[in-house]
């Protein structure tokens, strides 16, 4: 689904990513772990073309992202939902309106928007908060609203940049459950996190980054699927 081929990203003299190659399959859940400045957020930004690589190529579902004409970038972003540590909700809009925002941009009718948004509100368990404003929500509820907005267009990929960073442990696990549910529906989830408790407690693939490089990938080293693949090749 997503391929990074020898990708580097340079900010002046600083190398945010150096020669990164990575393959992420359909329906995969991947943790990007590593300290601040490791290049996790840059990697996510390259997928939605918030940034362009200095070298190498990024492919999303076979499309080379960096060579996409600017006019096609909105279509790419509609296929990739994004979630952030600071939620990025519109404070003057209610939960319902925040979630409906991407549907409005698509030009759907009011009835379609109402129905789709209701379904998503149900999925994230916020039916009773639909008329609340972000300032009236707890951190967990705000993040669930952000997830609902990211998922309302039913994207194939969800990028989550430190989604549990501002949350207490209970809320963080709620968010993880929700992301797991979206992954079970077939959505690729790539989550950048510092939270080792969460990433080490879950059986998903972990890609560890340091100073812009991938230093460990659980799929490449010691994972069952990797070993099985190796044995079948040897036979």
């Amino acid at each position: 689904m997503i391929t990074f081929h020898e990708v580097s990203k340079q900010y002046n003299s600083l190398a945010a990513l150096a020669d990164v190659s990575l393959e992420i399959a359909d329906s995969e859940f991947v943790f990007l772990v590593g300290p601040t400045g490791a290049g996790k957020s840059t990697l996510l930004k390259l997928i939605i073309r918030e940034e362009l690589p200095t070298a190498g190529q990024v492919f999303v579902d076979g499309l080379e992202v960096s060579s996409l004409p600017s006019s096609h970038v909105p279509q790419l972003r509609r296929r990739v939902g994004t979630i952030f540590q600071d939620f990025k909700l519109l404070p003057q809009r209610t939960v319902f309106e925040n979630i409906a925002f991407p549907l409005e941009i698509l030009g759907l009718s009011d009835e379609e928007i109402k129905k789709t948004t209701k379904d998503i509100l149900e999925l994230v368990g916020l039916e009773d908060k639909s008329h609340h404003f972000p300032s009236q929500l707890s951190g967990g509820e705000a993040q669930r609203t952000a997830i609902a907005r990211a998922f309302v267009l039913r994207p194939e990929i969800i990028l989550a940049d430190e989604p549990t960073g501002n949350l207490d442990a209970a809320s963080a696990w709620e968010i993880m459950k929700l992301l797991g549910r979206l992954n079970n529906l077939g959505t690729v989830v790539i989550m950048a996190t510092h939270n080792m408790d969460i990433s080490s407690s879950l059986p998903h693939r972990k890609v560890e980054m340091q100073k812009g490089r991938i230093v460990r990938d659980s799929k490449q080293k010691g994972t069952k699927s990797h070993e099985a693949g190796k044995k079948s090749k040897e036979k």
Partner: protein
Amino acid sequence: MRNLTRLLKIAATRIARNPYHALAAFLVMFLTFFVAGAFVLVSLGSNILLSYFESRPAVSAFLKDGTSAEKVKKIQEDLAATGVVSKTSYISKEEALKIYKERNKNEQLLTEFVTPEILPASIEVSTYKLEDLSKVADTLKNAPVVEEVIFQKNIVETLTSWTRTLRNVGGGVVAFLLVTTFLITLIVIGLNISLHQDEIEIMRLVGATSGYIRAPFIFEGVFYGLFSAVAATTFLWLIFALATPSLQRIFAGIPILPASPVIFGYLLIGEVLVGAAIGVVGSLVATRRYLNI
């Protein structure tokens, strides 16, 4: 169409949330369109006034009592022979009394004791060109039957000079105000763009096209232009309507008032078009300059 309604709603909400920005833009545009409209009206009025004076018999020669019809005819033929005269007309004593009574019909005291004998007969002469008035006046002054000559050269010259000055000064002021208005629109839209950076970022992330992100700012500029143009023209029309009775007394006899509503219609259309254009261009420049999408 659905998106257009939504984009207009976004623009209206942004205007409502930043009323001071909106008011600043509206007032500057209002002032510009009010001054521009007033300048256009005064310009039109002075042109009508000028045409009126230019088309009126420009030289009046009062004749001595007892001047025979043959002598009057001779003067008219001499004037026609100059080739510069467009029209001559003879006003007899009786006709002069009739005109006098018509002009002063509301002032009984002024008309009561006036008889044809008191008023002189006259010849009124129009020329094709203003500069020929002096020549005609000199010809008439030299005629032995002419008692006195009066002509409106000074009025026309002064009016021409005023109109020219008005065009230059008014044009300059309006141009200055238009540039100011354009810059204010640009600044206000630029400020609103910085105020809505978060919303713009979210729009980009959820897949809004650059047109969708830009459109509410363009509409905002157009709103300012349209509303201020309509308000300024309406205000101008109100002032003009209130001032018309007084102005009619000042310009009595000159067909300048009341001004036709068609003039205000054209003025409204012109100002709305200019307002919308300034709004569109100002906000386009602002979005190109301040919006990184």
